[in-house]
């Protein structure tokens, strides 16, 4: 037996896979192919222009919008509401969330309130806001403010809850002041949670922006889309929806940028 040559064969590889690798060119390709099929279908006539206009027509509608100067009007109205409402909501949310995170009294008093109001779709409150703040900008900004306030509060205080107690103990053991512990340890440690809360509150804000503008506004992307729908001008409708997509992507990109800038330290 010992003299017999042993049969040798290489060990078969069976690892690998289950890892996603970036393939840069795939996404643009998918987009291009989809739009090409769409365009071709519309021109060939098997997509009715009334149901879904060709991308080129939507682009024409967009060009009209730019040339007539209406784009700037709609966009600036929307952005203004979004920026004012979101900034105010986030600032207030950060403040209240920090208080809830740090002080037991604030937590006992406010956390149940926040939990009760958070699940209300804020658009349901718009009629009330119109009564309170008028049909103009006030009610729209208030809706966005409310919509971004609650997710920020919750993200902030749960971020603070999850701060490593060891780091806080370290701060105390070196006699750092309460203020310094909050400023230099607690808040930076809660930042990842706060930023992911912002991601949520930003997309909620965009939804509320459009909804509020659809209910009552002269200008704004939501108003533009609604009007286009009422006139059956689907080319304008598609142009408006595409703008919303771009708006959402831009906001997302900004938050990614902030994460990359401020959370480099994360493993």
């Amino acid at each position, binding site marked *: 037996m010992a003299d017999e040559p042993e049969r040798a064969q290489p060990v078969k590889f069976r690892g690998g896979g289950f890892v996603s690798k970036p393939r840069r060119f795939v996404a643009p390709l998918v987009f291009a192919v989809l739009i090409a099929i769409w365009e071709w279908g519309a021109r060939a006539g098997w997509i009715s222009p009334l149901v879904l206009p060709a991308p080129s027509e939507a682009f024409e509608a967009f060009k009209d919008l730019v040339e007539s100067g209406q784009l700037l009007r709609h966009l600036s109205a929307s952005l203004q509401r979004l920026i004012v409402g979101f900034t105010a909501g986030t600032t207030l949310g950060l403040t209240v969330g920090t208080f809830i995170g740090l002080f037991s009294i604030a937590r006992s008093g406010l956390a149940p309130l926040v939990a009760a109001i958070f699940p209300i779709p804020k658009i349901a409150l718009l009629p009330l806001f119109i009564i309170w703040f008028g049909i103009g900008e006030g009610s729209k900004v208030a809706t966005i403010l409310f919509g971004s306030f609650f997710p920020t509060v919750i993200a902030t205080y749960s971020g603070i809850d999850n701060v490593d107690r060891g780091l806080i103990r*370290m701060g105390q053991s*070196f006699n750092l002041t309460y203020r310094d512990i909050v400023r230099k340890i607690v808040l930076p440690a809660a930042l990842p949670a706060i930023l992911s809360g912002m991601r949520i509150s930003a997309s909620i804000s965009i939804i509320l922006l459009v909804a509020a503008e659809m209910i009552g506004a002269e200008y704004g992307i939501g108003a533009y889309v609604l009007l286009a729908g009422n006139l059956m001008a689907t080319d304008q409708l598609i142009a408006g929806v595409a703008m919303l997509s771009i708006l959402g992507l831009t906001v997302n990109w900004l938050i990614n940028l902030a994460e990359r800038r401020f959370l480099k*330290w994360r493993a």
Partner: protein
Amino acid sequence: MDLKVQGLSHRYDDLEVLRGIDLTIRQGEIVSVIGPSGCGKSTLLRLIGGLERPTEGEVLQVGEPPADSLNPLTYVFQDFALLPWRTVKGNVSLVLESKGLAQAETDARIADVLARTRLTDFADAIPKQLSGGMKQRVAIARALSVNPAVLLMDEPLSALDSQTRELLMDDLIQLWAREPFTSCYVTHNLNEAVRLGHKVVVLSRRPGVIREIVTIDTPVPKRSISDPALAEIQQSLWEMMREEAMTADMELADG
């Protein structure tokens, strides 16, 4: 400055953790505290440094801490407790900021401790770039920067692999030889306790009481891994603890 622990007892609700601890930590002396897991070693350290309030008894500072000591009782933690968003330098400067030091003095202190812990080249690295041993050296540098009167070390080497631990132990011995510091060194590792401690305090399992205090006369810098006298002490300590370690191992966690 000496530290004097008098009649210290501690309980969490119904759980008695420490009972009647009397202990003196003299200036320039390293006191190792060993005991089976769950015997209250870390609790003892937290009580000594004022991070927790004892149920009974007290901890006294005897004499004045050095005038330039910014934080007389300073901890080194097992998990390093570094701020991951700050650089090595930033982590040290954290504990010096808002202490009313001039910028030049702060910079000088940082440069000094980074040199002593051989971290000067890594001043601008952030914790995630560092190995475990380096992280703990940063934590030691941070502790030294405030000129502590007593260093309270809570299993500082337990999160490290055995080779890194050996290296860091050499570092600690060298630091002590250059500038003797006072320290209470809590560990479950007998070898560390025997290599670093002038006195080794053996705690029993819960409720922790002092079973024995073994004094080791060989000067700390002269102790080596292969010293038979040390091996003998280590052996006898192990025999003392063996039973209890076994019982502690069999215990169910409560709750």
